[in-house]
């Protein structure tokens, strides 16, 4: 390897930004074709191409950071800023759904009865499964912190235990939400209530699934000795993301499930 007199990561040419852009385009056009013309081939191609891009791009990053030592302190600082900015963009993504919800519920239109929830809508009882979901996500926030501290104290066994408990809680949350979805007396086509409810909780559920996948990746990387007690930003990014998803749920619970019912 050539001698390098600075700590920055000079990235090699990579095909993934190009395939990523193309598959994002395929995904968008595929969705339009599916929604309007029942045509699913483009969407399938888009999903396949974006999954492959994500897998291979992140695999390259794992190799650069873990085996090639490119993730030096200033590089890690950049990764941290990147993750923070990404989570801020996610905050605004969800702010849009909360805006739609409060816009519709604080001044309900006469067409839906002039009150919230609208006439004919029977919301879920927030003190039943939604409360359990809150307990599950709060518990997962505790177990992931346990996993992080065990990792920093180089306790492999407990770190793996705590991480798998976090993943199990994430899967349990997804299971509970799916059974709630099939139990609700209202659907996504039930006017503004159904639209705002399923848009907000559905995208949150998608984020829980993504977060669980991220944590599962961290679990396997931990098993493969990718993390040291002081060099494990992949894990920290997953933990930040998981806490973010947890906080979004608290806002959903208070706004939509509790106040909105």
């Amino acid at each position, binding site marked *: 390897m050539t001698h390098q007199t600075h700590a920055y990561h000079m990235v090699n040419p990579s095909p993934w930004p190009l395939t990523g852009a193309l598959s994002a385009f395929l995904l968008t056009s595929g969705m339009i074709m599916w929604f309007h013309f*029942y045509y699913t081939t483009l969407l399938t191609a888009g999903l396949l191409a974006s999954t492959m891009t994500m897998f291979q791009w992140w695999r390259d990053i794992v190799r650069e950071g873990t085996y090639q030592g490119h993730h030096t302190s200033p590089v890690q600082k950049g990764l941290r800023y990147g993750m923070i900015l990404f989570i801020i963009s996610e905050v605004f993504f969800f702010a849009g759904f909360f805006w739609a919800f409060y816009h519709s519920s604080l001044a309900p239109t006469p067409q839906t009865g002039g009150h919230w929830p609208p006439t004919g809508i029977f919301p879920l009882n927030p003190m039943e499964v939604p409360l359990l979901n809150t307990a599950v996500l709060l518990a997962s926030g505790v177990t992931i912190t346990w996993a992080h501290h065990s990792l*920093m104290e180089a306790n492999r066994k407990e770190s793996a235990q705590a991480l798998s408990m976090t993943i199990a809680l994430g899967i349990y949350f997804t299971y509970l939400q799916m059974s709630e979805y099939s139990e609700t007396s209202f659907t996504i*086509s039930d006017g503004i209530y159904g639209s705002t409810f399923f848009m907000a909780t559905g995208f949150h559920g998608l984020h829980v699934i993504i977060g669980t996948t991220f944590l599962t990746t961290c679990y396997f990387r931990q098993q493969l000795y990718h993390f040291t007690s002081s060099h494990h930003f992949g894990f920290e990014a997953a933990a930040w993301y998981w806490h973010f998803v947890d906080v979004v749920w608290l806002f959903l619970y208070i706004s939509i499930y509790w106040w909105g019912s």
Partner: protein
Amino acid sequence: MAAAVASRLSRLLGRSRPQVGRPMSSAAHSGEGSARMWKILTFFVALPGVGVSMLNVYLKSQKEHERPEFVAYPHLRIRTKPFPWGDGNHTLFHNSHVNPLPTGYEDE
């Protein structure tokens, strides 16, 4: 007493020295034994909380729910165009027992 305070202070000052090399790292403020505290919190606070909530759900689910009577409100069961799946008339999480179609419950 004074000696203990002084040693504690010096430890605190020692800890607040500027960190070299690992900016914004949460590993920098890890105290020994903090994993133990989070383990205790997991088993004595977090998981019992989940257990109590599960019990609460179980006890409340014992009661049978009456399904609401079907009323063909114009602001509900909206179908401006068919869904892009199935027969285009059933939502993705359709439950024929509690979700009526625009014309009413399927089993009535």
